[in-house]
């Protein structure tokens, strides 16, 4: 584990040897502080988004009542993925004898077991 004292010859390298490098523990602590600061900022932003969401929820409530909706409009590729709450287990087989299962949504949005 020996090193020649003259290994670093250039001025930059010599300067590098004379400047104390940042300790790994300090680097870790700085990173952790940054991460926690980011988490703090996300928390505050989340809180303000939560406040804004109340207005959105009020609108969604009106839409649900006003139109008598029963399902979220997320997967619109088939009727049993679009309206799982008012479909039943037979529906995927009713579309067409050769109908292909809508994967992965067909496995995710399941009709209720009654």
């Amino acid at each position, binding site marked *: 584990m020996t090193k020649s004292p003259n290994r670093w010859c250039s001025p930059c390298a010599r300067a590098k040897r004379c400047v104390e490098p940042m300790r790994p523990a300090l680097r870790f602590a700085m990173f952790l502080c940054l991460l926690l600061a980011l988490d703090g900022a996300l928390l505050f932003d989340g809180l303000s988004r939560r406040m804004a969401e109340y207005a959105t929820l009020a*609108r969604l409530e009106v839409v649900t*009542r006003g*139109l*008598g909706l029963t399902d979220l409009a997320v997967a619109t590729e088939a009727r049993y993925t679009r309206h799982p709450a008012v479909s039943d287990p037979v529906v995927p087989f*009713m579309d067409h004898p050769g109908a292909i299962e809508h994967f*992965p*949504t067909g496995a995710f949005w399941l009709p209720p077991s009654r």
Partner: protein
Amino acid sequence: MKSLSVLLVFAAVIFLLASFQMVTQALSDKAKQVLAHTPEITLQKMSAGRQESIPLAYGEQLAGIFGIRRVVPRIWGYYFDEVRLTNYTVMGLEVNEMPEGGRLGATLAKGVMPGPADEAQGRVVVGQSIKKTMDLAGRTTFSLFRPDLSLKPFEISGEFSPDTDILTNDLIVMNVADARDLFGIPAGLVTDLCVYVANPKEIETIAKKISEALPSVRVLTRSQIQKTYQVVFGWRSGFGSICLLAALAAFVILAWDKASGLSPEERREIAILKVLGWETSDILAVRSRESVIVSGLACIVGMTAAYIHVVYFDAALFRPVLMGWSVLRPDLHLLPRLAAGDILLILAFTVIPYLAATVIPAWRSATVPADSALGG
């Protein structure tokens, strides 16, 4: 360096698990809040196991059941746009007959809801995805095909606000007459009947009475509709968790393998420490601390990244699972709640297996003989 690579992989696994958990929890919350206002009872006619149009007369038969406040007929279904390979949900109802129907105007980004047939024939309100997909470029008129392939013209009288995308993005709302004309449904028939009761506590009782009065009718209560979504986002979200747990298992195996096999360098270091007076338990304590720091940091990094992914990038990685081949894709605007229970669940699934996978083999490999440090 090895620890850094383990930390990155670990953080990635936690990111996937936490993202999926946050998406399903946020959707579940939204479904719970929103579907609390779904019609108390929905009636569908079943024949030979299939849903078919229900006669309007059935609604009149319900007049004798005490506790029913209102029965509202609706015609709704799906229109497949062959050009754009897209399904639209078409809903025909008399807005003024629905609870809160008068307030629907406030949910629009612009325009007004379509009035009854005699006032507003062919007027529709569309969701945001419909507007984008049809690409009307400033036009407000479009046409759809009837079953006999004749064209029915429509004029857009309003657009739903993007805030309501999660419910309305694929909707075309019109009055009952227009929907009947578009789908070619004979007079006297509708798709379903929405039943509203005076006392919510009586829903189950009234539902039972309805099924006795109308045996061929499927009676769906609000609680049954809500239960669907509890199931979808409950154990069923394990659809994703099952895939991700496989990734986690692979990672735990990797961690075990890493902890069990010592490089010559690591063996040398342990031997040196032992010669300097360290015992096996001291070495294990340091390894455990290292594992706790790596897993703790990976957890924070993974969960932070997951939150950013879900909130600021709309859970982009999981859209294929949620939306599949759908052409119309809503902006989800998800905001997960981070409860202590959720964080503990993720910790239990990730940090604990990792600690077990590293500390146990570390104990076995810490039994390097001290004299191996001598003799160079």
